[in-house]
């Protein structure tokens, strides 16, 4: 299946009800004319229901209201695309080993994402190494070990309760010794409000920087598509302490729309890099704003 095809498959449920309502909304508004107050209010509710958030929704709706004539659907699409385009993805060339830190709150799918990322990298001809730095959660290392095996990728691990920063240091050294291109670091889930655990993340960053210059080169924040407005608070805090460079939006195969990612891109300027659309090892796709919005609005499947 093509990449767009799989994204569409994943987003199908997401879109079904949403687009249905948007359809009705578009039809009820006079074709091509200025949308009425009632239509705009309904549109705002629709966006809020997609977890886009009150302020971002209000901004989009206000722009559409001011805009005057035109096809409502096309205008909504343009507005959301505009918000997402503001946060474009940078992919700078760095000397090997490239260090990618994967962070996030508990239960968003960090470990699964690391497994899928490593698999993806290997298929693209790179030689990745997985670092099991979640030494806190019970059996987290065993879980990532299974993913490493599925992806046929080496793993560097330490015992439960070991200092995660030291595992990261060892992994980077090992990657250099074995001549690997990328190190994916799976970190323990932590709530962004826990100052001590966020401090631990800052330490991992420092130690990584000591092991390889400029590391971590990428910090991916994993956001669960079902999360609501708290996603913005999460992104903000993780940006402050971990220097997040991109978002991975997971669990898009449910009915949740992950609209908070639009708000994050809009308010914090962090690009969405990947989307998770299933439990299979291939179910991680590079994010494309065009495809995402198109898939959300597509009528025929």
């Amino acid at each position, binding site marked *: 299946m093509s990449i767009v095809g799989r994204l569409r498959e994943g987003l199908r449920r997401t879109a079904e009800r949403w687009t249905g309502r948007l359809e009705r909304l578009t039809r009820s508004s006079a074709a091509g004319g200025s949308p009425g107050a009632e239509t705009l209010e309904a549109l705002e*509710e629709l966006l809020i229901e997609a977890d886009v958030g*009150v302020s971002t929704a209000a901004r989009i709706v206000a722009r559409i209201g001011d805009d005057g004539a035109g096809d409502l659907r096309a205008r909504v699409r343009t507005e959301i695309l505009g918000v997402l385009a503001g946060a474009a993805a940078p992919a700078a060339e760095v000397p090997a080993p490239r260090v990618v830190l994967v962070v996030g709150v508990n*239960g968003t799918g960090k470990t699964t994402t690391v497994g899928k990322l490593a698999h993806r990298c290997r298929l693209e001809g790179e030689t990745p190494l997985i670092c099991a730095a979640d030494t806190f959660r019970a059996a*987290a290392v065993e879980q990532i070990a299974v993913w490493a095996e599925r992806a046929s990728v080496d793993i560097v691990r330490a015992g439960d309760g070991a200092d995660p920063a030291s595992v990261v240091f060892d992994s980077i050294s090992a990657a250099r010794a074995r001549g690997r291109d990328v190190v994916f670091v799976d970190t323990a889930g932590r*709530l*962004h409000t826990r100052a001590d655990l966020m401090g631990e993340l800052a330490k991992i960053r420092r130690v990584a920087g000591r092991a390889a210059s400029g590391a971590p080169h990428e910090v991916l924040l994993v956001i*669960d598509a079902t999360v609501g407005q708290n996603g913005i608070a999460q992104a903000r805090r993780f940006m402050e302490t971990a220097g997040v460079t991109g978002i991975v939006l997971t669990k898009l195969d*449910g009915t*949740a729309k992950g609209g908070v990612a639009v708000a994050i891109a809009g308010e914090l300027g962090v690009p969405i890099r990947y989307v998770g659309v299933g439990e299979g090892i291939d179910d991680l796709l590079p994010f494309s704003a065009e495809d995402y919005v198109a898939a959300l609005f597509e009528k025929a499947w």
Partner: protein
Amino acid sequence: MFQVLGSRLQDVFGSLRREVRLTPETVERTLREIRLALLEADVNFKVVKAFVDRVRDRATERKVLDSLTPSQQVVAIVRDELLKLFGDSPAGLSTAAERPQVVLLVGLQGSGKTTTTAKLGRWLVGQGRHPLLVSTDVRRPAAIEQLAVLGRDAELRVHEGGTGDPVRRAASAVSEARKLGFDVVLVDTAGRLHVDDELMQEIVAIREAVEPSDLLFVADAMTGQDAVRSAGEFNHRLGVTGVVLTKLDGDARGGAALSVVSVVGVPVVFAATGERMNDLEPFRPERLVSRLLGLGDVLSLVERAEQAIDRDDAVSMATRIRRNEITLDDLKQQMRAVGRMGPLNQVLGMIPGLGSRMPAADVDAGALTRMVAIIDSMTAHERRNPTVMNGSRRRRVARGSGTTVQEVNRLLRQFAQMRKVLKSVGGTSRRKGKRRRMALPAMR
């Protein structure tokens, strides 16, 4: 938990208090703010709409507008209506007579089912029950092992079925429980999407095999608008008896809880408030609503203090205070007790009027640890007689505790002040008779 929603509403009510009279315009402005606060808290937009309409109806009644304390009236109405949303179903588990009682935990991936299963086990032990845990998650790598490790750490028995079939694993746990006399079986399941027919069928099969008295839907407090759909679908297919709200120790506004309760009609029965095994408690809506409205959570605070402070310690401490014999050792003990009440920011969040004003990350829990370290670095003699602490001793203690001389100075100064205050308290109790005589005229 819920501080952010609380602080928004507190701002709203603060501005309302400054109004002398309530006009339809001020009510409307307030309602707009309430709507915004609830939407930002991820409360389902339909619930918000209905809620705001109900509050408007009641707030614009003549007797409210004409009353002398209109702002308090509105606060009372909002509180009332929020409580109504939560309903009055009892929290905790059902009181099924069946032995073993079977509890099935279900939910989306990553909501915290496995951790909750272990925490619920600990809670049941605290209730004098004998739980047996079993994982039926044969899908997620190392999920069974995760529950085994959690169970071992929490001293709970975890069923070790060798089979890879979820239904048989659950059934064999129940028969083991029957054989060995465990009175509750907690069945952890694999995370699944509510739209995944095949996996939802699997839970139906497990349910039919073990006939649970409680089917708990574990939901992440950070869930957005989708909560209504996922909880609704689980309930529709499986008949959920209660919701467990997890990750409440973050700054999630938890509006999803409100939505699930009012749209799906399933009560929240437990709340998980931290990563430690005992951070699970029966959900109490009245506490939550009080917190939302800035009334603080005094009930929880008292309960935690009771758990943390040893009664005998408290009595001997009181005696020493009376005799003015308090030492730095006593101070340390007090700090330890405060530490035992939980993370400092959690405790502070429960104090009325303080919770919403204090961003969680600003509280320096490390200060407590450092003070204990300073006291630990003193000799027994120094702890009893802090007056001997000269410059050289202070430098040694600072070095030993990894702090600075300034911090040592501050601690000693605080202790001296504390002693002075306590001296006056202790002094009055010795002159009890005199005080009573002085108090009498005022009573006439």
